[in-house]
């Protein structure tokens, strides 16, 4: 168990242990006045990996952005509770400090800012927000090196600008590296499998699996079942027209793979 997990566990004792990690209630959200989420309900328990599948345009990525607090996405009704506390009024950085992490489908490039610097700035900003002291340089370096080597990220890459000149696979691995360093309570992986070949997919999935823990919840958003062969979910939710229309065990993903999304597209219309 890492330090953060121990810390989270201590914090939990004060919390209601039966409380869900994440509760999304009747969530409505829109972008540029266009409604995308239409009364979405979803619960993620501690330690749970929940897969969210659904056709294009069903609101999967919107859900990810709304959870993280992206400003262009307006919540018009409903609530999002993390450990029983509403996230809606919190800025994106405050949500991050509470433990919300989003692995982006398209990670941004930041020229001139070394990945190492980026990670350290982010980590210390979160620690500061939580009233913790900065991580010492040797301790930080030790953790980065360990996490990077597990993901097959070499030291040279950590010195390069964030995602600049990285391949698709490298960018996704870099997202998982950040997740490993930031040790979130809730990790949202938005189409992490897109653009990955099978070897890269295995490395990324392996990195994610290593981060599964009894205190951490994960939402794995994917269009295809393929990723779920490697990150095996506890539950699968099907999203259509901005709502969860079906939930089931991991076998639901296989069913979707075989039958496609056609029935959900018409059903929710």
């Amino acid at each position, binding site marked *: 168990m890492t330090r953060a997990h121990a810390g989270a566990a201590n914090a939990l004792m004060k919390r209601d242990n039966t409380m869900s990690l994440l509760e999304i209630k009747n969530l409505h959200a829109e972008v540029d006045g266009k409604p995308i989420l239409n009364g979405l309900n979803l619960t993620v328990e501690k330690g749970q990996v929940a897969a969210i599948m659904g056709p294009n345009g069903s609101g999967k990525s919107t859900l990810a952005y709304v959870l*993280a607090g992206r400003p262009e996405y307006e919540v018009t009704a409903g609530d999002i509770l993390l450990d029983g506390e509403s996230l809606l009024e919190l800025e*994106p*950085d405050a949500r991050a400090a509470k433990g919300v992490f989003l692995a982006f489908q398209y990670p941004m490039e930041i020229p001139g800012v070394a990945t190492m610097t980026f990670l350290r700035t982010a980590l210390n900003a979160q620690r500061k927000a939580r009233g913790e002291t900065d991580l010492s340089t040797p301790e930080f370096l030790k953790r980065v090196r360990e996490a990077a080597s597990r993901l097959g990220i070499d030291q040279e890459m950590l010195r390069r600008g964030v995602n600049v000149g990285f391949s698709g696979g490298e960018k996704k691995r870099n997202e998982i590296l950040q997740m490993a360093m930031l040790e979130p309570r809730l990790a949202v992986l938005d189409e992490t499998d897109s653009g990955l070949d099978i070897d890269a997919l295995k490395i990324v999935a392996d990195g994610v699996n290593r981060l599964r823990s009894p205190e951490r919840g994960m939402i794995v958003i994917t269009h295809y079942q393929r990723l779920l062969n490697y990150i095996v979910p506890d539950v699968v939710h099907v999203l259509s027209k901005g709502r969860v229309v079906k939930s089931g065990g991991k076998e639901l993903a296989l069913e979707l793979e075989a039958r496609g999304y056609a029935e959900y597209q018409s059903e929710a219309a």
Partner: protein
Amino acid sequence: MPAVQETVDQVRSIDVDQYKYGFVTDIESEKAPKGLSEDIVRFISEKKSEPAWMLEWRLSAYRRWLTMREPTWARVDYPKIDYQDIYYYAAPKKKDGPKSLDEVDPEILETYNKLGIPLREQEILAGVERGDGSRTRVAVDAVFDSVSVATTFQAELKKAGVIFMPISQALREHPELVRQYLGSVVPVTDNFFATLNSAVFSDGSFVYVPPGVRCPMELSTYFRINEKNTGQFERTLIIADKGAYVSYLEGCTAPMRDENQLHAAVVELIALDDAEIKYSTVQNWYPGDSQGRGGIYNFVTKRGDCRGDRAKISWTQVETGSAITWKYPSCILRGDNSQGEFYSIAISNGHQQVDSGTKMIHLGKNTSSRIISKGIAAAHSQNTYRGLVSAHRKATGARNFTNCDSLLIGNKCGAHTVPYIEAKNSSTVFEHEATTSKISDQMLFYCRQRGMSAEEAVALVVNGFVKDVLQQLPMEFAVEAQKLISISLEGSVG
């Protein structure tokens, strides 16, 4: 892509009133009467006990200036300057020139202390600690309004044969050197502001590094405008003789005042065979308030002459201040195989207007030059890069690489790039790259999702953007510049 509302608000709330150097030192000063005339020119020359040839030089400049017109080609807009409403000479009152620091007015010492520039040598000896634990020393010439008030480490420099003193003192002690080089790079007739400077300049720094000498420490001048309605016209002359090397730093600040103040400096650099001069500037003149009131008008002519073969001149500037900046540090690559470099970070915020860039004039064979310019515009500011790269008919094998990047914060500012490129021989290779980007909302969101505040995110992105140039600054200045950049953009977010 539309700016996210947040960014727009952040930019709107940019508060340039946070200028940290805006205090006024209360000190009695001696001024020449307001306005400009032959009498004023004579007054200044007399104050400095200059030789007769110098007075003639000034007067010829003054007469020439009367026939000249203020240039209007730059992309800057400001009310007409009344040249008769300016004091051309202001000096802290004192009996004789201070012989040592103990004689410098404590108010002035305190001013430099507040600016973070210790003039006492023992304090400077403590210096900035480098990464490897060693300490560096910097010799400082402090110019307060029109006069130099202190120059440190003169004795130690003298031992190495380096002359570093106020130019007014050099005119008395080394008239032959000054006479040989003054105006040889920026002629008296060069341009409106340079000609004005030639007539009325009151002080500045003089550096001479003899053949084969590597200057044992960084040299630095800190310019401070204190008096109201006073122009500052300093003149800097740096000569690196054959095989010599010198690194020179310049810093500038001024109090916050509602009226505009004029700063028209001239800097001349001369590098002989195999010599190298590295000239760095951190310019933080008062930029005016958030409504665009006040601020320094900065009209500066800086030019270096690679007069010898294999000479090298390198300009590095971090420009964050001034209401108006009109400044083109240039290199004349006269010697064969000589090299010129220009690294620039220009940040504009509030209502600042920057028109800055460089000229690389290739005259010698196989000369090369490199230009890296990073412009950052926020709020209502306008930021223009204007550059000339030219190769003479005989400058065979000339090479230039130019990279101009602009970064916009918000949607009320502007970035402009105006490159002039002329090649008069066919063996010249000139490359030009330019980009304009915005701190995109996605990029900000990405950083904020990782836990950074909007302010931290902008600072991180901007620091990444300017990194190539920051690396060119001497270390003690790089740290200062980095701080300055975040202060300049403070309030641009959050």
